[in-house]
């Protein structure tokens, strides 16, 4: 809850001159007078990651993972999870649950009529949900973003 802005450093200050030519490089294909491009009829939309990853814009959130209890499912510490809160939670989905005042990521499982939040790493044990547990599902995880190469 620190004010992040305070840590902002000014990296550079440039003089502004509105008299100088502002160079904008714009490339555009020359218009062909003769043959139309054979690909014209097949022009497709560009791939849009937002569209691919997010179906319900208004109810989808990103959260950051801390900890190793879900490595078996391919979720590592520092990964970003995309969570849709509008999806109805059911067993065998990875969910974000509120447990003891914290948001936690786990498999939602049911066994012999009992509800469990299950880690995916043998070093951790499943958590049985009973009536006394202060427990609520916050959302359903739909994707995990894991970064392999950081260019910036």
């Amino acid at each position, binding site marked *: 809850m620190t004010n992040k802005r305070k840590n902002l450093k000014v990296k550079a200050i440039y003089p502004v001159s*509105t008299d100088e030519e502002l160079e904008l490089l714009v490339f555009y294909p020359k218009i062909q007078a003769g043959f139309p491009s054979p690909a014209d009829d097949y022009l497709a939309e560009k791939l849009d990651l937002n569209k691919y990853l997010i179906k319900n814009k208004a109810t989808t959130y990103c959260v950051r*993972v*801390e*900890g190793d209890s879900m490595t078996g499912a391919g979720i590592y510490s520092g990964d970003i*999870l995309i969570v849709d*809160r509008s999806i109805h939670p059911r067993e065998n989905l990875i969910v*974000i649950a509120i447990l003891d005042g*914290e948001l936690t990521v786990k498999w939602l499982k049911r066994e012999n009529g009992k509800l469990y939040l299950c880690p995916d790493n043998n070093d951790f044990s499943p958590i049985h949900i009973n009536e006394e547990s202060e427990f609520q599902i916050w959302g359903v995880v739909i994707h995990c973003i894991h970064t392999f190469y950081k260019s910036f």
Partner: protein
Amino acid sequence: MNKIFALVDCDNFYVSCERAFNPLLRNRPVIVLSNNDGCIIARSNEVKKLDIPFGQPYFKCRDKIDKYNIAVFSSNYELYGDMSRRVMEILAQYAVDIEIYSIDEAFLELEGLRRFDLDDYVKEIQQYVLKGTGIPVTIGVGQTKTLAKIASKYAKKNKQNNGVFNIVNHPDIDQLLEAVPVEDIWGIGRQYDKFLKKFNINNARQLKYSQDKWIKKHMTVVGLRTVWELRGQSCLSLEQLPPAKKEICTSRSFGRPVESLQEMREAIADYASRAAEKLRKQNSAASILQVFLTTNRFKEEPQYFNCIQINLPTPTNDTFEIVKFACKGIEKIYRSNFRYKKAGVFLTDIVSKDNIQTNLFDTYPNRDKSKKLMEILDLLNSKYGSKTVQVASAGTKKEWAMQRNLKSNNYTTNWDELPRVKAK
């Protein structure tokens, strides 16, 4: 065909936004403070019961805050704005039409949906918003906007309705209106309230059965519309796109008193850039610029207030040009040896940017280039966060800036501040 309107109102909106991402706040009393952490502007229901009034200065209730372990937050408008957008987006999916009335209120038109069971439909909206955003909402339904507003107030007062109240086809609507004092009716201001009470019209039922002629004479056609709306005849339709603002103001209280011209110039340059940004966002340009500064009139110290108007050579929305003139203005009215509390920039005489009459004696070098430069400036700041690129005259330390020491994270708008989930 009869129309159906719903008024959707987010409960304790700012508090609910904080709670949506911080489960520890669920059963704790919470308050949110105004800019500079001055007064209380949002309270959770627990706080409302503790006799801590809306608008009370923060320092006056510190004892109670400690005693009841109340969680305190500076206002986080980035978060509230994004959550508001999400709520409105959901509401729009459920309605034929939507009017976003404020950051936490919207009117919906549900015409043509009457074949569904209206009560169930409205409950579904309420539940979906809660599930998808964590924001609880109250919904009032009526044949007119005025009645929907009354229904929503009723739902808030009477908790047994679980935040939903529908007065369409209500068996005894008059009895209900009798319990609504005239000052609580949407569109009845303080003047009309006083006037009506003088004639012994004290509640909505009495107003509903007043004579058209008499109302029109004393309250104009605007008042008459309210009366018709109370009768269930819809006169006010949803207002779509808000018209472009005719004036833009950016003014803020400083985090601490500002005394030097240097700091004052920084603040004014900062506010002027923000105002120029707002202009470009609504595709307009301004021809008149006003700059003002003031000391704190509640303090017993030397007082000074001044304001200057500058006519811009050509209507403009160029940050550099507006900043340049704003700084010139502040230099003219600034006096030393005062402790300034607040300053601001007003832009008026606003025109659409496509309608700019150019001035033969224009002093600005090249307006086309300026336009491109502004586009790039806006692009960079929208892509990499506001103030990634800013005018240097707005300063880098900004020690005068608003205090928001207790601000929560920008959970939904900043990659570095996402909610943390434990995998432990």
